[in-house]
């Protein structure tokens, strides 16, 4: 009676099994569908700010730290430690310092790059910078008074930048000096890389020959940029900074003009990243290196550093990490989303709670901070950029 049934069923199941084995549609990673491209913010950049603030309250850390670092900063003008030293320095000179480093990077780019870069640079309210000669001629037609090509902000022409800058100022020292530089460098380099990839097709010919030479040059270039940044940050006169930047820019321009190749640039970038990641004792650099959109789909670059810092400053005001968390060397990353009006959308959710007795407390404290400090003042027109945020709370940086 079971005569036809059992073989049929067996064959059917074997076929099903084979289908599962060989042709079963693999579950796709959910990243595309679910993972929101969160704007990553790190709390490191505010370290200087918070130190300053703490210094006003207790006066201790500042005395300890500030002089030492200030001393170091001028000494080490060689640029190797630019990130660490400069971070401690007071913010005021920063605005100048910020624009300078990218300039050298952006400028050297050959014509193709110029074609891309026309994205309106944000007119920075910094007075000392008014030298328009730096930017590429292409930009001249644009009405911007300060055509400093800042790779980070490049994509969007912000007419309301001044406002944001003010906002940042309001928020409190939202602009830590040097820490901004590294991200910018990396992003500028990213941009360069993109550009170079495009250029690569055209100039594939002169690839390998110049590689070594370029690596060396790249290091020099970077050092120059860092130096420029540091000098500027170190309260050097604005003129000086500009001069430095110009010099660096010239150098870089010469180098890149000589050879434009994707591979060397990649090497350059990785150099920078490595240096950023490993070259400093503080966690700041490592984190800065990680700045960037995880999926790269959304332009994090839409947020200017000062805007990001403004958000950081707003959050940080309310953050009171559990005692002992700083010593425990733990940090927590929270993901949250914001509404258009800057209020918190839903509750912040820790991406991974550190495995530490204080881990949960730390995550809670970060959640509390996020909830208490809302609504946040953010540039409304960049809502897409700060709609979803990934914030890393490192208690080490607040003290």
């Amino acid at each position: 009676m079971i005569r036809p049934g059992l073989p049929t069923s067996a064959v059917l199941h074997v076929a099903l099994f084979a289908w599962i084995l060989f042709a079963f549609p693999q579950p796709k990673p959910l990243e595309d569908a679910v993972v929101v491209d969160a704007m990553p913010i790190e709390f490191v950049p505010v370290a200087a700010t918070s130190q300053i603030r703490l210094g006003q309250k207790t006066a201790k850390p500042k005395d300890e730290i500030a002089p030492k670092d200030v001393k170091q900063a001028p000494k080490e003008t060689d640029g190797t430690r630019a990130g660490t030293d400069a971070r401690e320095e007071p913010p005021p000179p920063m605005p100048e310092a910020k624009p300078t480093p990218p300039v050298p990077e952006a400028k050297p780019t050959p014509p193709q790059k110029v074609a891309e870069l026309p994205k309106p640079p944000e007119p920075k309210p910094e007075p000392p910078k008014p030298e328009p000669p730096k930017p590429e001629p292409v930009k001249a037609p644009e009405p911007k008074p300060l055509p400093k090509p800042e790779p980070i902000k490049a994509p969007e022409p912000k007419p309301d930048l001044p406002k944001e800058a003010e906002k940042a100022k309001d928020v409190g020292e939202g602009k830590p000096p040097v820490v901004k530089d590294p991200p910018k460098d990396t992003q500028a380099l990213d941009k360069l890389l993109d550009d170079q990839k495009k250029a690569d097709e055209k100039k594939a010919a002169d690839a390998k020959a110049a590689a070594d030479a370029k690596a060396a040059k790249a290091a020099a270039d970077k050092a120059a940029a860092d130096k420029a940044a540091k000098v500027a940050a170190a309260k050097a006169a604005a003129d000086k900074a500009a001069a430095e930047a110009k010099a660096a820019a010239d150098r870089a321009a010469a180098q890149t003009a000589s050879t434009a190749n994707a591979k060397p640039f990649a090497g350059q970038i990785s150099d920078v990243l490595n240096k950023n990641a490993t070259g400093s004792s503080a966690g700041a650099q490592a984190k800065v290196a990680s700045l960037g959109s995880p999926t790269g789909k959304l332009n994090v670059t839409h947020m200017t550093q000062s805007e990001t810092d403004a958000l950081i400053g707003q959050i940080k005001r309310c953050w009171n990490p559990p005692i002992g968390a700083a010593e425990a060397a733990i940090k927590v990353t929270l993901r949250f989303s914001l509404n258009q009006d800057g209020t918190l959308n839903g509750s912040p959710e820790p991406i991974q709670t550190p495995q530490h007795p204080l881990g949960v407390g730390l995550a809670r404290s970060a959640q509390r901070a996020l909830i208490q400090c809302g609504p946040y003042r953010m540039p409304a027109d960049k809502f897409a950029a700060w709609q979803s945020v990934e914030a890393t709370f490192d208690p080490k940086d607040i003290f």
Partner: protein
Amino acid sequence: MNPEVAQAALAAPHVDMTLLSMFWSAHIVVKLVMLGLFSASVWCWAIIVDKLFLFMKTRRQMDNFEQVFWSGQSLEDLYRTLASRANHGMPALFVAAMREWKRSHEGGRPAIGSLQQRIDKVMDVTIGREVDRFQSNLLVLATIGSSSPFIGLFGTVWGIMTAFQGIAASKNTSLAVVAPGIAEALLATAIGLVAAIPAVIAYNKLSSDAGALGGRLETFADEFSAILSRQIDERQAA
């Protein structure tokens, strides 16, 4: 209980999540559950296929037999052709009744008195046997259909249990650590449902088919019984 489970849970995130790898990384209890459910599915489909063929064949056979039976052909001839072979369904019913009729007329004194009751009994027995044949194994379908979701659920609960033990062992609550174990565990329920859903549907359809065929046999038995009863009465009167 399981360093290995914890290991597996930790190692799992980078593993490709094919169904097969999920099966292999599952706990042994979950594996047994999955294998049992898989074989239950095989069995259940075997029964379904059998029954479908059987019912199809029986229905065709009944159609043919009824056609012949009501065509006016001599029942003696029909009996002679059918008696020699093994019959199922309606022919079996007919042959059983005719055999009883024949036997009652064989001796010198025909035993016609309670022949009607005997024929009815014989046909009842035959109908019962045929309906049993129709319905055999249908209860297996019902059992698989109703119990395999629970069995799968058991596998899932067990798998999730071990997954949580792995979490406890690794002290890591990241979703990436939990997910593979839970996915494995859920596979058990999926297989249970894969086995149960066809079983339930097929049980409902096949049992109603079996009922319809049984009813058809009953109808034929009544009709044939009426014919034979008329014959008996005529002979008694004669």
